[in-house]
């Protein structure tokens, strides 16, 4: 018995040693929760003989807080949203990708090759992009849903049955679109009006919830829910009679990006990973899993056909413009922070 135990320990020690010796290097990813298929990670690990470690976060702000609280030097890559790329670059948290360091950089779709949040793609590559709007349960409401009034000035049958995302950026950007004012307004009258409008609108809201944004729509707890397009497509696929709205006032567009972090312990592998995700076939696998768009030329051919035609990804003619969430300066941001606190006080 003792011998069996001994040899088992020896064998597992050997295996562990072999495992460590086998992988040539490491790659530490800091990623959103449930946002990359495991098979894709395995594929990269096998192709490049790399051991992958992945930790997850649940919001852009949580990512920033964790990195600023001392996680720099732990991870090689992270996946911040558009405005957060700009903030992180401003904070000096990102490394610059040198000219010619990414052999697949040319694969980036022209539309996404020079975005305002990272001019010239000096720190990032596209990961997934989509929109944030809201869905309406068509069993409850049959009228026109392509207006932000549904969220902020809803008809009687929807009042009290609305879930908002518990996210300052998404809620305030949508509210600004509803009022037709800039996202980083410094006009006091506009800001006061925004504050008043939100206080009024809150009377109609049932809850603020991001994690369960899909679930509350599927279960019928609410009839209207602010939601991301891919998440919404999943809600519809799960059988809810819900429709994604593209308001005439506009809607929020976002793009998540893979960034190279400063002090990356495995910089080489991080670049290999970015090149890997710029292969149309690989990034299409992410799209098929997450149900969002990819920013890589030729990825469409490898995607599920229904992904291209799903209503959540195809704004109608009447849709307003899609806008990114903007980054305000400190003084302006503090006013928006106060408006948000006042909304949830």
């Amino acid at each position: 018995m003792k011998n069996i135990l001994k040899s088992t320990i020896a064998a597992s020690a050997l295996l562990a040693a072999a495992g460590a010796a086998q992988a040539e290097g490491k790659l530490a990813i800091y990623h959103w929760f449930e946002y990359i298929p495991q098979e894709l990670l395995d594929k990269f690990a096998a192709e490049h003989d790399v051991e992958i470690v992945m930790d997850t976060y649940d919001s852009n702000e949580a990512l920033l807080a964790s990195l600023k609280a001392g996680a720099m030097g732990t991870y090689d890559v992270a996946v911040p949203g558009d405005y957060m790329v700009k903030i992180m670059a401003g904070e000096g948290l990102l490394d610059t990708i040198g000219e010619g360091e990414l052999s697949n950089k040319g694969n980036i779709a022209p539309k996404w090759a020079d975005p305002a949040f990272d001019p010239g793609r000096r720190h990032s590559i596209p990961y997934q992009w989509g929109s944030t709007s809201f869905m309406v349960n068509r069993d409850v409401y049959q009228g026109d849903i392509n207006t932000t009034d549904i969220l902020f000035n809803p008809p009687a049958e929807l009042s009290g049955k609305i879930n908002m995302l518990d996210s300052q950026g998404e809620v305030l950007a949508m509210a600004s679109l509803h009022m037709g004012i800039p996202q980083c307004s410094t006009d006091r009258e506009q800001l006061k009006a925004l504050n008043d409008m939100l206080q009024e609108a809150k009377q109609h809201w049932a809850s603020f919830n991001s994690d369960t944004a899909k679930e509350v729509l599927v279960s019928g707890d609410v009839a209207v829910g602010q939601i991301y397009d891919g998440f919404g497509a999943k809600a519809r696929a799960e059988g809810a009679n819900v429709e994604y709205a593209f308001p005439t006032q506009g809607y929020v567009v976002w793009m998540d990006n893979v960034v190279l972090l400063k002090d990356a312990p495995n910089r080489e592998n991080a670049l290999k990973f970015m090149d890997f995700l710029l292969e149309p076939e690989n990034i299409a696998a992410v799209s098929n899993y997450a149900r969002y768009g990819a920013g890589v030329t030729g990825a469409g051919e490898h995607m599920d056909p229904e992904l291209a035609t799903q209503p959540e990804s195809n704004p109608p003619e009447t849709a307003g413009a899609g806008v990114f969430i903007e980054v305000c300066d400190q003084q302006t941001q503090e006013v928006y922070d106060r408006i948000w606190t006042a909304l949830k006080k």
Partner: protein
Amino acid sequence: MAGGAAGGGGTQGDTYKEARTWLLLPTWVTLSILVLVPVLLMLVYSFLTKEFRGGVIWEFTFAAYDQFFCDRGLFGDEPCSIEWTYLNIFWRSIWQAGLATILSLVIGFPTAYFIATRPARVRPLWVFLITIPYWVNLLIRTVSMRFMLREEGPLNNFLVWSGIADAPLQMINTNFAVQIGLFYSYLPFMVLPIYAAVERYNFSLSEAAADLYASKWTTLRRIVLPAVRPGVIAGCILVFVPSLGAFLAPDLLGGAKNFMIGSLIEEQFKGNAGNWPFGAAASMILLSMVLVILMIYARQQARAGGEER
């Protein structure tokens, strides 16, 4: 412990005394690393200048406390008037936690009494039954409570089926749901200390009271309750304090429409605000409140101990 050492022989006592310092060292190290240092860090941070989007600048300021108590208008340039926002958030949390404590006491005391009066053989089984649900993670229990309370959930189905309610009641995303969630989360913390106290209670005292023509109610009020009071107070503190900082129940069951202390602090670190000194200041204010409660408890205990002697 001191009594034990004094009871030994002279030399032995000295040996213990010397050894005791060393034996307690791990406790002190653990306490300082896990309690003292983090709290001091928080205290220091609450007096530092906030860095935009998280982090601190090492310059001393009262800004965080000013923000807590001073309302300077939407644009931050008006003279200071009392800021009710955060006081209201604190008051709401205290109110919710207090209500949850009372509810737990009302249900928990009879439960504990019931268990303690069963035959000694089956008592462990009852205690075991009380604790079983708490082997499951708090998050999962709270989400399950969502399913129970929702419009088409089992509770509403039962109410409608039995005719108690005509139509499903709106229970989810209300303060009622938060109450249920808090109560359910922390009930055993009430039951177990009271059970421990009642089990030690000498029931012949109750018999003596009955022999002297005390009614059952009088016996409970004047004999049982004073005897088990330490257990009741411990139970109340164990329910009240975690309820005060809870954010799972308010978020998942209350719809997160209103900040509670816990979610307000979380937002300062993980949310858009990124205001670490303010989060630290709010934590310090919460901590001081809890400390005051515990000090009142400690003094009461000391007084009760003095009476016994």
